[in-house]
């Protein structure tokens, strides 16, 4: 089971780097902020995950961690926080570009995440995703607020697009893509919330058994698959979605 969780984790890292490369290449051509923000999100969160896995492996090998591993742990959590901020910028640019309240919300959540990160790393020990501390809860809540708002906006907009599609004005494939994008953020939020809740209810030893890592890896994999299908759906998948939409009575 733990080997399966490891395979899933490695696959999501590869998928994360591939998505980051494709989105950043598109941003270089289009000069548009949404794909740049999403490419930066994928890159930061994937590098952060690689460093996080490395720190966990180092911690499993030795109880006394060298200072540079703790430093890597701080960097990995910083990258995850910055990724959430990049996502907040992406949500603003995709759904609310030009709205002043959205700028204020992005700055506010950026400060929230920054304060949460400083509070999490200041004790000077390895920071785990599910650490059951007030500082980690604050850091996690800032990120979950971004993921939750992203999911809410995506589901709301996808619903609107489906209504437009019934009048021949909307793009059913885009509606499906945006819905999947929202699904990805629900899964990402659940990764953090489940890790935190499992640690709080069972303790950190829950992650030494197979079920908790498998659940978190599964949610993480679902998030990456949804992100991939939302941005780069294969042609056959697009045809399947379009065929399904045309069969729905208006």
């Amino acid at each position: 089971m733990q080997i399966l969780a490891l395979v899933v984790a490695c696959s999501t890292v590869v998928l994360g780097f591939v998505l980051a490369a494709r989105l950043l290449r598109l941003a270089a051509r289009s000069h548009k902020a949404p794909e740049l923000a999403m490419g930066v999100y994928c890159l930061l969160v994937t590098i952060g995950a690689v460093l996080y896995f490395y720190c966990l492996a180092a911690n499993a090998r030795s109880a006394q961690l060298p200072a540079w591993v703790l430093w890597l742990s701080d960097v990995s959590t910083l990258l995850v926080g910055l990724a959430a901020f990049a996502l907040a910028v992406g949500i603003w640019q995709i759904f609310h570009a030009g709205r002043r309240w959205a700028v204020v919300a992005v700055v506010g959540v950026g400060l929230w995440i920054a304060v949460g990160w400083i509070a999490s790393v200041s004790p000077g020990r390895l920071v785990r995703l599910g650490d059951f501390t007030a500082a980690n809860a604050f850091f996690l809540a800032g990120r979950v607020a971004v993921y939750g708002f992203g999911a809410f906006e995506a589901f709301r907009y996808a619903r609107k697009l489906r209504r437009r599609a019934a009048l021949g004005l909307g793009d059913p494939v885009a509606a499906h893509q945006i819905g999947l994008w929202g699904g990805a953020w629900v899964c990402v939020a659940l990764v953090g919330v489940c890790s935190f809740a499992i640690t709080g209810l069972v303790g950190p030893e829950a992650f030494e058994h197979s079920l908790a890592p498998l659940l978190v890896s599964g949610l993480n994999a679902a998030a990456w698959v949804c992100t991939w299908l939302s941005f780069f759906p294969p042609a056959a998948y697009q045809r399947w979605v379009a065929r399904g939409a045309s069969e729905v009575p208006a």
Partner: protein
Amino acid sequence: MATNRLFNLVTEAMEAESRFNRLEARGTLRIALKTSGLDADTIEPDQMRVVLERILPKELAARGIDAPEALCDRLVQVVRSADQGGAFTRSDAPEDVFRRTRSA
């Protein structure tokens, strides 16, 4: 011209051509837009024409307006004449982002 000026233009014409006051005209058009999954601040001329032809007549009839189709035809003409020469600029909509990525 910002796209929400299109909403103002249509509601002003609706107010002039019917017994609706400003609030009633704006409210009725907002309901028609919401039913269609559209927003007053991002509506485009092509979308407005479809709403005026297919959704608004039912909303007007439900509010006791006589000959709603004729009123909507006149509103479509208002949109057509205002839209000549690409007067309404179009901003990047969320679906444009996902269209760009899927065709990349």
